[in-house]
């Protein structure tokens, strides 16, 4: 299967995001990337968006729903968000959306930092297999993988997609 070109996808995605924000009349968005891949993608979007707060990062290790299955992730890095996200319009960015569980955990964590005005979900790739009713507002590319196949983003320089 052919994977999309990552640079083209990122560029197109940031252009679509600019249009989307204008349509939604959001003028001071807060870019939040989910560690680790989501932060890399958010960094690419920031090149075009130039938001005043830069890119914040969210580490969802303490919010995962699979602690009883897998325990604590050994490399917790912590979240770095502004002092207040109250009433902010958040652009939540992840590299790959699949089950939707990561996004649920991320939203739960965000609400412990404050009550945002809105959350827009942006993903580089959507590979389907959803287990929760969560859909990205903008997505770089949708892929249909064969059973058991996964896609992995490595980075940050250069960003590379590989099938596993």
């Amino acid at each position, binding site marked *: 299967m052919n994977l999309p070109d990552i640079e083209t996808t990122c560029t197109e995605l940031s252009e679509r995001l600019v249009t989307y924000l204008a349509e939604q009349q959001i003028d001071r968005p807060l870019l939040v990337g989910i560690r680790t891949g989501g932060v890399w993608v958010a960094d690419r979007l920031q090149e075009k968006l130039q938001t005043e707060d830069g890119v914040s990062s969210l*580490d969802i*290790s*303490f*919010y995962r729903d699979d*602690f*009883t*299955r*897998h*325990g*604590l992730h*050994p*490399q*917790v*890095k*912590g*979240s*770095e968000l502004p002092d207040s996200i109250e009433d902010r319009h958040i652009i939540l960015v992840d590299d790959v959306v699949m089950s939707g569980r990561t996004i649920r955990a991320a939203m*739960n964590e965000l609400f*412990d*930092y*404050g009550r945002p005005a809105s959350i827009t979900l942006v993903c580089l790739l959507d590979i389907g297999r959803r287990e929760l009713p969560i859909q990205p507002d903008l997505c770089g590319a949708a892929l249909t993988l064969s059973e058991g196949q996964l896609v992995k983003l490595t980075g940050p320089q250069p960003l590379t997609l590989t099938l596993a």
Partner: protein
Amino acid sequence: MNTDPAKVQLTADGRLKHFLTTEGLSRELLTEILDTADSFISTQERDVKKVPLLRGKTVVNLFFENSTRTRSTFELAAKRLSADILNLDISKSATAKGETLMDTLWNLEAMYSDMFVVRHADSGAAHFIAEHVTPHVAIINAGDGRHAHPTQAMLDMLTIRRHKGSIEGKIVAIVGDILHSRVARSQIHALRTLGAAEVRVIGPGTLLPKDIESLGCKAFYRMEEGLKDCDVVIMLRLQKERMQNALLPSEGEFFKLYGLTEEKLAYAKPDAIVMHPGPINRGVEIESNVADGPQSVILNQVSYGIAVRMAVMAMAMSGQQQEKNELYGNDQEEA
């Protein structure tokens, strides 16, 4: 006790499942504790301090010996991990009515407890409980006799790392009653493992154990020599009950020789930090000017204590959970 405490606290693949002592734990594992604690510090600075990690787990604070600070920081740590916590003051409960330690434990296990935080006057108590407890219940040592107080040592390591950048290469002096101090023992092991350049102990001969240098530290009897070029000065609490055993002439005498004053602190590096596990005896081991002064990080230690205890509890519970999953498989959990 025949088993090695360092091994009892680890799973087969080397992850933490109990936390009994800093002795024998690898540098990687101690660093993982500090890194995880760092992440918890950021959650502690939010309005909402709780994370959902240990939701549904039950933690029992089992204190056979009094302690206000340690018990309350463990309680806050458990609550901020969303666990349910039960505080048991054993000196006032069933053991006072003749129930044995193991009977008390089996009763608590029957209430589906997942973790015991144990403070006991006997060295080795937490280790004993870890060896006899039902599988998948985590034991955290909150101080056992003169043996160990590992969470205190790790919060001290976190304090040094956050204020001095790293532990590696630093000269650290521990001052006071080393003989009776479980804190000092745990600190020495952690400091050595994490690469401190030099660990010194300073105190009167009667309060320094004879074999202390075998732990890899240097003994000093005078503050002037011991504090020279130190990056970190850790004062220990002088336990007043020791005075009755003729180990010390008087509080006044001790303060004169070993009490930390601005004058004595000047022997250390100008940017040295001053630490104390608390509670402090002002005018006995430390003067107020120093305790409240710009080099003191004593209150920061208390805040970091919660984050370190959250880290250790989360990691031990995680280790237990993984061991359980390997035995029964993941599907068991789903049911």
